[in-house]
């Protein structure tokens, strides 16, 4: 089937500000036409018709922060299992982190990710490469060659490069190629051996805790280094008001800086750790309510550019531990959209604004052609009901690991179908597996 007509849809396209009833025509995996008046004079002959029944049709989500276990920890998650979760969550592009074993720090390993993804994954997989060899924070990787191999950005994932000299040189060198650097802002000395956010609640629980400024310090340092080197820089995820204020000020000075926030930092605060709930042990930790509110406001205003899942699958045995010993991380591909849509349902952000942070904003930062409804753009689409409520159940998740921080929580916003290159990769109505 080379032509598909999506009819009777509510089109949502943050790139053009479109929120109106309409239709989309897909040819050879790409959007060939779309709009409110499309097909007013009839559907083209020979086209397959998908009746959207008035549901919303939006560009597929681009998740800029996904950890998988492939290669090296396939028991936690493979590219294939993560991509099933992504498809079920309306995510059509997963940007995967290099924190694997081996670390994605050389061109042949970038190629490995591309080939494994092509062979097994249902959605697009875009790899980031390590910024330093083996994520050791000491020597920079072959940024130029890695870019040629298809690395979309450079990051040490959830590790902070603590050595300012190394960071300065990596940023300066990366700027030769216009390469995008994605940083993690958590001072590893201030946060050493800690498990949550410092404050009254951690004091009451007796859990070793790191202050919120562990994030701000690195954000402020890296802003200065960007100023010095001119590198393009994206903070993978921030979680504090201090970090947001510093980034907002840096942007207003015209620095090439952007930032993301994890959906769980929009939906949860430190009190949700409750009675030592290890599924809510994440990195950076869940913060104070004032910080959570700052993140919500940052998304609404656009100072926070993107919302990510920070999907980090962990096996049950590493989570069924005391809070101090349990692994960090939460799965999130399947709850990214509904958790983000809470901002819309709570009246804190517009529907198109929420979608903007999940589609066109990451596409622009990464230089991807998807993330929009546009003629010639890849037909990566999600069909959803933004108002449909459902209860999160770990048992029903598609990812291999089930460590969701949202177990039992009711969200609104349900994905019904997901398309990549015009092919349906997820259909809630037909649970049978699709061949890839």
């Amino acid at each position, binding site marked *: 089937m080379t032509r598909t007509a999506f009819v009777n849809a509510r089109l949502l396209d943050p790139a053009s500000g479109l929120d109106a009833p309409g239709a989309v025509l897909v040819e050879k995996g790409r959007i060939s036409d779309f709009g409110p008046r499309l097909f007013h004079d009839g559907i083209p002959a020979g086209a397959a018709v998908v009746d959207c029944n008035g549901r919303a049709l939006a560009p597929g989500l681009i998740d800029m922060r996904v950890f998988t276990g492939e290669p090296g920890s396939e028991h936690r998650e493979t590219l294939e299992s993560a991509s099933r979760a992504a498809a079920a969550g309306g995510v059509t592009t997963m940007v995967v982190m290099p924190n694997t074993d081996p670390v994605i720090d050389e061109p042949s390993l970038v190629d490995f990710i591309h080939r494994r993804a092509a062979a097994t994954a249902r959605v697009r997989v875009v790899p980031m490469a390590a910024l330093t060899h083996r994520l050791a924070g000491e020597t920079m990787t072959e940024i130029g060659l890695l870019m040629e191999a298809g690395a979309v950005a450079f990051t040490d994932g959830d590790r902070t490069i603590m050595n300012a000299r190394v960071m300065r040189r990596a940023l300066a060198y990366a700027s030769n190629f216009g390469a995008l650097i994605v940083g993690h802002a958590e001072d590893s000395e201030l946060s050493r051996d800690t498990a949550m956010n410092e404050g009254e609640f951690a*004091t009451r629980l007796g859990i070793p805790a790191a202050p919120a400024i562990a994030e701000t310090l690195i954000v402020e340092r890296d802003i200065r280094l960007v100023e010095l080197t001119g590198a393009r820089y994206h903070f993978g995820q921030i979680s504090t008001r201090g970090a947001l204020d510093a980034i907002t000020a840096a942007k207003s000075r015209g620095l090439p800086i952007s930032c993301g926030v994890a959906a769980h930092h929009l939906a949860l605060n430190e009190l949700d750790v409750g009675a*030592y709930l290890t599924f809510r042990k994440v990195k950076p930790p869940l913060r104070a309510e004032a910080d959570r509110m700052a993140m919500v406001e940052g998304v609404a205003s656009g100072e926070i550019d993107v919302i990510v899942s920070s999907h980090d699958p962990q096996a049950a045995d590493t989570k069924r*531990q005391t809070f101090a010993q349990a692994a960090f991380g939460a799965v999130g591909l399947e709850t990214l959209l509904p958790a983000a849509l809470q901002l819309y349902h709570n009246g804190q952000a517009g529907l198109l604004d929420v979608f903007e942070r999940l589609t066109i904003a990451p596409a622009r930062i990464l230089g991807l052609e998807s993330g929009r409804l546009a003629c010639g753009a890849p037909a990566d689409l999600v069909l959803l009901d933004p108002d449909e409520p459902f209860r999160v159940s770990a048992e029903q998740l598609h990812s291999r690991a089930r460590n969701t921080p949202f177990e039992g929580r009711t969200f609104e916003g349900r994905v019904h179908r997901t398309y990549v290159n015009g092919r349906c990769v997820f259909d809630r109505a037909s649970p049978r597996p699709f061949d890839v």
Partner: protein
Amino acid sequence: MRGIDGPILKSSHLLGTDSLSVSEITDLLDLADGYVALNCAGERKRSLLTGRTLINLFFEPSTRTQSSFELAGKRLGADVLNMSVRTSSISKGETLLDTAATLNAMRPDILVLRHQDAGAAALLSQKVDCSVVNAGDGAHEHPTQALLDALTIRRRRTNFEGLIVTICGDILHSRVARSNIILLSKLGARVRLCAPRTLLPAEAERFGVEIYTDMVEALADADIVMMLRLQLERMAGAFVPSTREYFRFYGLDRDKLAYAKPGALVMHPGPMNRGIEIDSAVADDIEVSVIQEQVEMGVATRMAVLDALARSLPREGRYRP
């Protein structure tokens, strides 16, 4: 004394002081008072826990807490098994919950847990069928210590209301401090904390306590001076520059004690670092120091806790074949 034979605790576990009501605390202290008298008498062995199994599971070395639970269990007639981390398979990579499952299969009635991580006792209590007693979890809680401290105070001072209790030392890492803050505040005492800034936890004032960094100010008019142990690995530059500097500013000696209320009591959960947080001249002065009495109250208090928990144990075996 309400709880001569009836139930005392709502919960089948003792995980912390936070969840205890004032009446539960008072009943436990009353019960413990009875055991103090009994322990002084010639015939100490009782049959309350005959046929019951108590397991002491200690992931951290402990002398007085472990032996006092052991003695308490034996005096009540229980079979007591001591498991310490050195002899278990924890060091071979088995997790706390693996150990819990193994011990659970041995069908104990009461598990006493000491663990280096906060929340360990709560986690264990979710995974086993028996009663769990928290004998110290990380920097979180040590409820039986707070109970025995309260008992020690109550036997010397009739009323907690308005009593000024100054807790001094490594508050940051101390479960004893947290449990005492919560429990003594519930009983009506005014709690003060005194430590260098590096050893005070964030937002400690939210416990409703007064914070001091100057020991003389903290001791002014204090009725009770509770000193905490400074862990050796936390000295020498990490949290305080040296033991001698610590002793100079935060060690309890006669000069500093003179600022407290005349007749103030000195307490310490043990083991003491003499010459670091407390001067021997104070620690060994039976006119002011009740440190040995705390140990005696420890056995009676733990008997009371085991007694109270045993009342909620099913008479028949809880385990189905």
